[in-house]
């Protein structure tokens, strides 16, 4: 299980970095959001160091640390707000320039 999650985190990080380096603003924004998801998954596994049994239950196996789950919940809500906001800004920018290519969105270069 740990191995699968570790591979998942690594893959997400890789995809995120690849997308962030693209010349398209929307791809690169999606890359940042994916990076946030990779980190959320990493945080989630931080609670598994004691055991993986459900927290606050009567099971006999060692229970998972519930605090990282609360942290991830907060981080997910924040990144959802960020995603909505960044896409709204991208809509305005790409409508203004009629392109998503970062090389052509250059009016800030005074």
């Amino acid at each position, binding site marked *: 299980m740990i191995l699968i999650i570790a591979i998942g985190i690594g893959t997400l990080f890789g995809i995120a970095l690849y997308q962030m380096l693209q010349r398209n603003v929307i791809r690169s924004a999606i890359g940042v959001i994916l990076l946030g998801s990779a980190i959320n998954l990493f945080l989630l596994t931080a609670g598994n160091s004691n055991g993986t049994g459900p927290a606050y239950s009567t099971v006999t196996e060692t229970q998972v640390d519930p605090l990282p789950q609360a942290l991830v919940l907060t981080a997910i809500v924040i990144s959802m707000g960020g995603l909505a906001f960044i896409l709204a800004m991208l809509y305005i920018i790409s409508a203004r320039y009629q392109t998503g290519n970062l090389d052509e969105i250059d009016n*800030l270069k005074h």
Partner: protein
Amino acid sequence: MNNLTILPILIPFAGALLLLLLPRTVRGWMAVGLMAISLAASALLLWTVTTTGEAQVYHVGGWVTDNIPFGITLVGDQLAAFMVLMAQLVLTLGFVYALGCNDQVTTYPTFYPVFLMLTVGLSGAFLTGDLFNLFVFAELLVVSGTILTAIADDRFGTEAAFKYFYMSLLAAAFLLLACGVLYISYGTLNMAQLGVAISAETTPLALIALGLLLATFMAKSATVPFHFWQPDFHAAAPTPVSATLSSVVVKLGIYGFLRLTTLLYVDQAPQIQMVLLVAGVIGIVYGGLAAIGTHNAKRMLAYSTIAQLGFILVGIGWGTPLALAAALVFAFNHALIKAAMLMLAGAIASRAPVKSADFNIITGVGKQFPFMGVLFFIGALGLAGIPPTNGFISKMLLFNSGIVGTEYVSLLIIGVAAILTLIYTIRAFMRVWFVAPATPGKSKKGDLLIAPALLILLVLVLGLWAEPLVALATDTATWLENPSTYIEAVIGNGFVLTEVP
């Protein structure tokens, strides 16, 4: 009176929600009133901390047993209280400027509530004693700052806001990753507990977290390798917002560096200080040269922020109590001067034929407004560090601490680079107030000058009567030298690190 610690966060937060229910016409006045109350609360907090000599700790929700906090802790130690007072002072005057501002953006229904949320984010980030809570407040700060810039009158506002938001999401990702890494290593996110745990045993993961935290705070304070979002963003923001962004919001990074070197990573402090010293010196030279090369008054002042923050970083980098006190005085004085200068640049832009701070447009506009010229000139002197302004006090203290600490190489470089400040501020002053205007037109009604005038008055008062501020900063530096004061206030003596497999 520990409830005092939460008031600088709670008053603007309640105010932001309350303002949404009120009619649009009274929102600005209500916001200024609430900020005045909040400013009084933070002043009372600083006064309480200074007189009692104890950090005011507030455990949110009362989740504490035997002095060991389990929930979020708000810690009003002297550094946090000092930073909050600085932030709220400048933000209150930012609200005053917004009241007299002609920008379209101040008439939007959400402007004042979002501006108050920016205050909540900044005050909360200074006051919190929990690393994850710092992440939440920093995100709140970033989102409010981005919204305020994205709706700016400047047509490049959205692009600048996107650039900042992208950068800040990356910084937030680093901070979140650092939280996760530290939680795996030590099983806690409370900064006092982390300070004890990291100095007891530094795991390799903790060093990774140190790198991530350094990157985060460098991105937040626009330190040189991470500075590129800053001039665009600060130049495009609406004037009342950019005045606060460029003066106090960037100080969040400075606060983070101080906490890193004096609380979390005390044993690794020499290495961190070396990094900050190099970044600071590069920032001073780069910021000064870039400010000379700009064609826009607001942009020039934004680059100048990079240089001025460089001085503060050099102070933290030297790391002696004297240098830390000088860095704190510098941070306070820079907040006042930079806010005043940006407000004046925005006010002159609002009086120009086309609303813009571009030097080609505002050349000669100042000729009809000699009072504003006097204010700008005093601000320019303050930025360059010439008496009788408080800029002189902060530069004198910083250079003095460098001489005492025999740091002659960095002192020489920053001493020469400090002259660059004089070149660009005086050049801007001459172009706006002494050159004949390109297109002689009649004067326009512009933004009110109450807020910048008050700030310049403070600049002069703190330049002539600097002793209270210097004494306060010296006292704060003593606090920073003894992290045990902070740790004892939060977790007492009974902290035993739980075993983490």
